[in-house]
C-alpha cells in the first residue's frame, strides 16, 4: 500500500457520508479499511503455502428517525448505491431511542504505527525466517524425555499492513495506518510415535528486528510445553489450588470477566456485576486495566470503531469494581459517556470490546507460587463457562500435577468451579509478567479450592 492511503480512505469515507445523507439519512457514518497481508504457512514441518492478499472494505451505518441500517461492500464504486440501500434498510427497521452517532471527541495525535523497514518483508524473507525457526524448534530436547521431538502441525509468519478511516455526519474524521508482523505455531511432541498434548503459541512485532527474538521466545515456550507434556501419567482427584500461567489467564478468567464487565452484558442482565461498582469483587491486589490506546510501550490505533478516543480504564482496582466498558450506544443507554471501546471493523456494526488488557503484577516469585503441596499447573484450558453464574468446567490439556513441589505431566484433568468465586480465592499473584501478542500483559495467578478430577 502507498503512503497517504489512510487519508484517501478518509476522503472515500466522507464521500460515502455525503451519498448517504443525499439518500435521506439523518445521520451517516462510513468506516473504511484497507489491508495487505503477506503470509507463509508451514505444515508438517515443511513450507506449505505462500499467499498475498490486498483488500478494501467499507461499512456504511445510517440512522433515519432513530432507525438503523447498515451495508458493507468491498467495492468503492458501489458505495453510493450501498449508502442508498442502507437508508432503505433503516426505513424498514423499528426505531430505538438510544440509536445515533456520537459527537466527535479529540483524539490524541499519536501518528501512524508504520516502521518502513517492516513493510519490505516479503514472502522469501518470511519463508527463510520460518525455516530457521522450524529447525530451531525441531532441534529442542527435554532432558527428561531425550527421545521426544516436537512435530509442527502448522506454523505461519505474516505481515499485516492496515489503514483505516472513519468519518461521520456529526463531524468524526479519523485516519490511521499501522503495520505489524506476526507468527504462530501449533503442534505437539512425539515420543516413540505417540503424540503428547498439543500446544499453541505466537507473538507480534512492529519492528523487523524485534520479530525474531519475540518469535524465538514464543516458539521455545511452545516447544517446552509440548515436550513437557510427553509421558503424561494419570492424575489425581482433589480440591485444591491451581496455578494459571499468563498464557492461560485470558482463556480461563480474564476473557470471561471482561465480557461480564462490558456494558452490553450489564444492559442485557447477563452480568453478575451490574450495580456493584465500588464493591469488592476480587482479592486485594487484583487490578485489571483496559489499556485504551495500548499498553505502555505498545501503542495501538488511538481511536475506536466509532472514531472516539480509546480510553484507559481501570476496571478492577485492588479488588474493587471501578466501572464498565462502553461504546456510544451503551453509553447513551446508561446515561454516561463512551469510554471508546467500540470494537469491530467495516463489515460489522460496533460492539463493545476491549483492545488491550493488563493485570498488575504481585509480589510472589513464580517459582514460589508453583511450590504447591498438591495442585495443578494449567498449561491449556478447554471448556465452557457460564458468564452469568460464573460456573465453569473444562479440561486441562497438557497440565502438570505438583506434589510437594515436584511437577509431573498428567493426562486430561477436569477442572470445575466458579470463576466469580475464584476471583476471591486468588492466593498469589506472580511478580513476573508476560506480554502476549503485544496487547495483553499478565502475571501468573494461584487460585485456591478448585475441584480437580483425574481423567
Amino acid at each position: 500500500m502507498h503512503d497517504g492511503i489512510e487519508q484517501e480512505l478518509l476522503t472515500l469515507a466522507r464521500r460515502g457520508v455525503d451519498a448517504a445523507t443525499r439518500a435521506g439519512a439523518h445521520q451517516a457514518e462510513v468506516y473504511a479499511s484497507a489491508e495487505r497481508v503477506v503470509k507463509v504457512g508451514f505444515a508438517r514441518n515443511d513450507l506449505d503455502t505462500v499467499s498475498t492478499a490486498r483488500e478494501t472494505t467499507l461499512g456504511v451505518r445510517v440512522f433515519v428517525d432513530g432507525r438503523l441500517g447498515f451495508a458493507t461492500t468491498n467495492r468503492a464504486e458501489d458505495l453510493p448505491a450501498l449508502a442508498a440501500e442502507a437508508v432503505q434498510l433503516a426505513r424498514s427497521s423499528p426505531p430505538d431511542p438510544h440509536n445515533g452517532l456520537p459527537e466527535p471527541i479529540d483524539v490524541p495525535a499519536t501518528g501512524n504505527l508504520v516502521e518502513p523497514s517492516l513493510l519490505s518483508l516479503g514472502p522469501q524473507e518470511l519463508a527463510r525466517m520460518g525455516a530457521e525457526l522450524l529447525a530451531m524448534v525441531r532441534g529442542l530436547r527435554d532432558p527428561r524425555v531425550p527421545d521426544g521431538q516436537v512435530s509442527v502441525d502448522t506454523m505461519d509468519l505474516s505481515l499485516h499492513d492496515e489503514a483505516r478511516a472513519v468519518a461521520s455526519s456529526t463531524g468524526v474524521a479519523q485516519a490511521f495506518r499501522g503495520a505489524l508482523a506476526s507468527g504462530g505455531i501449533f503442534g505437539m511432541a512425539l515420543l516413540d510415535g505417540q503424540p503428547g498434548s498439543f500446544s499453541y503459541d505466537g507473538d507480534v512485532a512492529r519492528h523487523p528486528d524485534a520479530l525474531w527474538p519475540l518469535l524465538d521466545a514464543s516458539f521455545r515456550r511452545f516447544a517446552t510445553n509440548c515436550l513437557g507434556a510427553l509421558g503424561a501419567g494419570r492424575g489425581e482427584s482433589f480440591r485444591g489450588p491451581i496455578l494459571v500461567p499468563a498464557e492461560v489467564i485470558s482463556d480461563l478468567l480474564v476473557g470471561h470477566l471482561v465480557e461480564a464487565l462490558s456494558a452490553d452484558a450489564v444492559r442485557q442482565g447477563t452480568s453478575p456485576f451490574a450495580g456493584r461498582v465500588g464493591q469488592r469483587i476480587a482479592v486485594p491486589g487484583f487490578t485489571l486495566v483496559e489499556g485504551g490506546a495500548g499498553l505502555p510501550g505498545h501503542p495501538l490505533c488511538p481511536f475506536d470503531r466509532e472514531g472516539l478516543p480509546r480510553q484507559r480504564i481501570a476496571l478492577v482496582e485492588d479488588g474493587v469494581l471501578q466501572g464498565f466498558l462502553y461504546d456510544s450506544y451503551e453509553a447513551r443507554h446508561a446515561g454516561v459517556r463512551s469510554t471508546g471501546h467500540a470494537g469491530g471493523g467495516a463489515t460489522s456494526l460496533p460492539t463493545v470490546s476491549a483492545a488491550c488488557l493488563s493485570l498488575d503484577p504481585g509480589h510472589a516469585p513464580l517459582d514460589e507460587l508453583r511450590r504447591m503441596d498438591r495442585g495443578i499447573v494449567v498449561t491449556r484450558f478447554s471448556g465452557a463457562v457460564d458468564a452469568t453464574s460464573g460456573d465453569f468446567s473444562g479440561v486441562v490439556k497438557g497440565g502438570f500435577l505438583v506434589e510437594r513441589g515436584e511437577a509431573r505431566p498428567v493426562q486430561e484433568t477436569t477442572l470445575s468451579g466458579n470463576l466469580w468465586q475464584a476471583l476471591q480465592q486468588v492466593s498469589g499473584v506472580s511478580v513476573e509478567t508476560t506480554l502476549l501478542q503485544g496487547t495483553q500483559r499478565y502475571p501468573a495467578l494461584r487460585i485456591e479450592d478448585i475441584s480437580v478430577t483425574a481423567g
Partner: protein
Amino acid sequence: MSIPRPQGPPGAWFDQRFGVGPELLRRVMQAALHSGADDCDLYFEHAASTSVSLSDHKVNAASTRVDLGMGVRVVVGDQVGFAFTEELTAEAMIAAARTAAEIAAHGGQREVTGPVAVRISDWTPVTHPWDRVDMETRVAMVRGWEQRAFQRDPRVARVETHLADAAKVVMIVRPDGRLVEDWRPMTQGYVLTTAVDGDLRESSSYNVAGRAGLEYYDEGRQARLVDQAVDRTVFLLRAGKPPAGEMPVVLAAGPSAILLHEAIGHGMEADFNRKGTSIYASRMGQRIASEHVTIVDDGTIPGSRGAVNVDDEGNPGQRTTLVEGGVLRSYMHDEISARHYGVAPTGSGRRQGFRHAPLPRMRATVMEPGPHDPAEIIASVKRGIYCQTFSNGQVHIGGGDFAFYMKTGFLIEDGKLTMPIKDVNVIGNGPEALERIDMVGNDTVIDEGGWTCGKDGQGVPVSQGMPTVRVGRLNVGGVG
C-alpha cells in the same frame, strides 16, 4: 441486495458485468503457469447477503453485504501459492497470478487450454428466491418469531431473532479448459431465548438453515424454530447435572451428529491423512467400527446446507461413502490429495471464498440407519446418559481426542429416561468412540440446524445427520 440466479450461459455473469471474458481468462491462467506448475485454478466470486436481527423488541440491525473478487492458486507437488484480488482488471488479476506463481519457480510444465463451459447438476431447488423478497417481509418474520417466543412461556424474559439470506455466483476455471459457473443460495433463521425463574436464568437457541429461498420457511418450520428455542431454554431451568464418570452414552438422532463431524469426519479429510496427522492415515480398507456403521459424506442432498452442485475446484458435487459396514472405504479428497493418492477427487475441495485456497472439507456427513429400534437402545442402558443437544466442543483432529459440551439430555436409569440434565462435558476419543458404537438406530435424522465448519481459519457451511446410537462407554464430566 440479493444476487439472482444467473440466466445466461456459464461464464456470462462475470463476462457481462465485469468484462472477464475467455481471452482475459486465458491470459491470467498463462500468467499463473508461466513458471510451470502441476495445477492451477482461478476462482471468481460475486456474493451478497442480507440479514435482519431483532432483540429487546427494539435494538435491531438490518444489514446487507456485497463482496466481489477472485483468487488464483498455483500448485507444485503438495505446495500451494495463492493470491487474491478484489479488482477484476487484467492488470490486478495478472499481478495476483504472478504472485501465486512465485512458489512454482521449479515446477513442471502445464498446457493452457481455452475455457469451455461445463454444465452441472443443481441441488438447490429454490422456488421463491430472496431477490424477490422485500425488507418488510423479512422484518415481519423476525417480529413474528419474537412474539411467538414470548407467548410460548411466561418465563421467557429476552428474545433475539435473526434472519439471514445470501447468494453468490462463483466461476471456476482450470488449465484443462473447464469453466464452471454455480449459483449458491443460503438462508438461516435463528432464535435465542433467555428464561428466568426466581434466581435461575438460562439461555438457549435453535436455528434452521439450508440452500433455499423464502419457501423454506413454511408455517411448520417457523413454529418449530421458535418452539424448540423456548423449549430448550425452559428445559434448562429444571435440569441438573449427572454424576461424573465413565458410562454408556446414548446419542440422540440428529443434533448429536456434530460429534460425528468433529471427532470422526475431520480424521477422514484426506489432507490430514496425506500429512500423516490422522489416526486413519494407515487404516484404508480396515475395520474401524462395528458392522452396523455406514457413514457417507453427501453433497447431493437437495436444499441441504452442505449441498454442493460443484466443489470449489470445479468438480461435481457427489456422495462419498467413507465407512461401509464398519470398513474405511474412502477419504474426502481435493485435487492435491487425489493426485497424491492416485484416486479421483471426491468433490470435497471447498473454500470459504475467493480470499482462501481450497482444502478437503465435509459437506453433509451422515451416518446411515442401522438395525436397532431407538426405544430398544435406551432400554438397553442400565445407567448412563442420553445426549440430546450439544453447544460446542473441542477436538484434536490428529489423535481425535474430543471434549464436547452437552447442553441438554437425560439421565438413563434402568432403561428409562429420568432426570433432565445439562451442561456437562462428554470427553473421549473420536476413533475409539466410533469403535465403541455397538447399537445403531433405524431413525437417521439430518440436523436442520446451520453449522459452519472452521478449519485453517476458513468457515464453510456443512450439515450432518445420524440415527440414535449407543456408545459403550465415554467419560462424562458431571458432578463429583
